[in-house]
């Protein structure tokens, strides 16, 4: 039960554009080691794709794809990943957020372990930023109702 928008043009363009935007966002997140980019930037782009979905179609259609419960879960999940990685470092016997210690459990040297740690952390940041963007946008534009209409 998807309600179509009035403009066929907007719908078709968004249908093509949104997956590309999301793909690009993932590229920005994972390629942060070698080029400008990283969790925040990628997360913002990813969040923007969902916001575009809301603007081009409507909220119900977007929530059909990405429910509020999932969104709230993801807001917390990203930060949780980040802080959990810090805790794993403590359990392995190093300081909080000292990713170098991962070389004990992974078959890599210290520098590479740090690189992997950065990647994991950036992923967490990306998830949180994406979900937060969507959450703030929905709450602000609909006065917290998550539905079309007046105040």
């Amino acid at each position, binding site marked *: 039960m998807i309600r179509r928008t009035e403009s066929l043009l907007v719908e078709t363009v968004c249908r093509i554009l949104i997956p590309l935007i999301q793909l690009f966002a993932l590229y920005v997140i994972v390629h942060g*080691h070698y080029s400008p980019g990283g969790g925040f930037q990628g997360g913002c782009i990813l969040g923007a794709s969902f916001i575009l979905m809301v603007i081009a179609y409507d909220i119900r259609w977007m929530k059909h794809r990405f429910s509020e419960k999932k969104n709230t879960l993801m807001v917390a999940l990203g930060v949780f990943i*980040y802080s959990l990685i810090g805790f794993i470092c403590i359990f392995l016997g190093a300081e909080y*957020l000292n990713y170098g210690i991962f070389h004990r459990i992974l078959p890599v040297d210290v*520098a590479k372990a740090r690189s992997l740690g950065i990647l994991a952390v950036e992923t967490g*940041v990306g998830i*949180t930023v994406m979900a*937060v963007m969507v*959450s703030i946008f929905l709450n602000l534009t609909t006065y917290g*109702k*998550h539905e079309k209409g007046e105040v």
Partner: protein
Amino acid sequence: MKIFAIIIVILTGAVLIYSTFDMPDWGNPNSPASVHVSPRYIEKTIEETATPNAVTSVLADYRGFDTLGETIVIFTAAIVCILLLRREDDKTH
């Protein structure tokens, strides 16, 4: 009220301009900020973190706790928006 505001703004501006005379020039490679802590990040980033992008390695590793803090800040913003605005009484499906 407007005059009061203008006075405050001009006072702040005066302090800012006054202090600018002792600041290093724009783009000076020998300014203290460029020689004290930051060179290590540029020199050692590949060796220590296997990440060529120094901004990423500083962001997520050398100063990783700041980044945790900022992720928490944005998490706070989301929680605050839900706390203040979200009303569950209307059923959405």
